[in-house]
């Protein structure tokens, strides 16, 4: 079949127009960056008791509210596992994290022992992503990213002058999460004589920690490390 010269010209012009239109079309929106904040314990599970007499579940929730507000102010979407003194089991926490496809997951704890901030990543050995990961070891495919996220959080806290210890341990909720996930345990701020300068539920101390964590999350997002 032979096309006339004019038909060929029209065809080429249309192809050029379509190509130009495709180039000018707005790019598909980037996946929404969501942060999961998990205030540990709640309900009947009070957690530990702080030196000030506050229950750990209450201090965790207060910290969760602070961090959520700071991240919201920076335009970051936040999903929390609890907003009140309610019991949420570890499986439910992981379900919430996995359903929102979070770009970062932070499980908040407070303790009376030790000092500064204790950062924990899962102790699962890194594994290749699987199409159907096992529930109890789903975090294995994300451990490398969780450790990278821990590095960013460590830097932010260090920059804020807050001492940090990094560890890895078995964490029932986090081990099932499919996101860069960390447990952040706020211990008392201690002076050189090991005396407590600020309890984990101290409002100023929590505000400093929350600001550093928010800065770390912003850094984590802008570095494009989220999935």
């Amino acid at each position, binding site marked *: 079949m032979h096309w006339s010269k004019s038909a060929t010209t029209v065809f080429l012009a249309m192809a050029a127009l379509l190509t130009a239109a495709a180039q000018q079309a707005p790019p598909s929106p980037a996946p929404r960056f969501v942060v999961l904040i998990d205030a540990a314990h709640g309900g009947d599970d009070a957690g*530990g008791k702080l030196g000030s007499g506050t229950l750990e579940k209450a201090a965790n929730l207060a910290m969760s509210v602070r961090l959520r507000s700071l991240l919201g102010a920076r335009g970051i979407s936040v999903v929390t596992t609890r907003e009140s003194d309610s019991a949420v089991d570890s499986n439910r926490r992981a379900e919430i994290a996995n359903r929102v496809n979070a770009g970062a997951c932070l499980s908040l704890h407070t303790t009376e022992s030790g000092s500064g901030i204790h950062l924990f990543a899962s102790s699962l050995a890194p594994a290749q992503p699987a199409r159907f990961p096992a529930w109890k070891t789903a975090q294995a495919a994300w451990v490398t990213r969780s450790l990278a996220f821990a590095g960013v959080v460590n830097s932010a806290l260090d920059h804020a002058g807050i001492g940090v210890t990094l560890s890895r341990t078995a964490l029932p909720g986090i081990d099932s999460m499919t996101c860069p996930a960390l447990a952040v345990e706020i211990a008392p701020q201690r002076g050189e004589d090991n005396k407590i300068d600020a309890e984990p539920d101290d409002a100023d101390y929590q505000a400093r920690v929350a600001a550093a964590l928010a800065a770390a999350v912003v850094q984590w997002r802008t570095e494009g490390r989220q999935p």
Partner: protein
Amino acid sequence: MIPRYQKILFVVLLIASLAMGVVLWQLRERAHKRLVAGESSAPTTAPQVAPAEQATLVAANDNDNSLLPQVHSLPLPADPGARARAVLGRLLDLYADPEAKHPVPGGAASVMQVFLLPASRDAQSRDALAQLAVVNLGSGFAASHPSGLQTEALTIDSICATLRANLPHVAEVRFLVDGQTRATLAGHADLTRTYLTALAATAEGTKP
């Protein structure tokens, strides 16, 4: 009408019966005392005191989140299970000290038993003699353990690393509390899983 002689006979027989009862009771008491006196409560076998040996205790420090080995001299039984219990008992005695850097009340009495069983196939593929240690802790220890991610993880890691340092074939550790499985030690550390001593040994000596 009962004749008089029958009444007298009845009274005499009754008195005789009571007298015989009293005599029998006294004879029984005398026989019992004789038996008790014949039993010797003196020790006849000297207890065997296990010789003191060097044991490595991997002690935790809450201040810097570290696990550091310390060498102690203590009597160690020959039986591996009893040996493991003795070593862990001394480790928990360190933690029960009021000046301890990882304070946990309870002490040696908190380790009720340590059972040594064959480890999983996976562990035995690396070491044919690999063992699983099942550490049975007292509920008082779990109830009084300070609550927190770091402090609980340090206790678990130090127990695992101490077992590995003194019983090199112990590759896996599981925990029971009063013989029952328990979800967490004090609200955080997972006690339902099997811990690998190799990972605890990796953490040993680490400081931030």
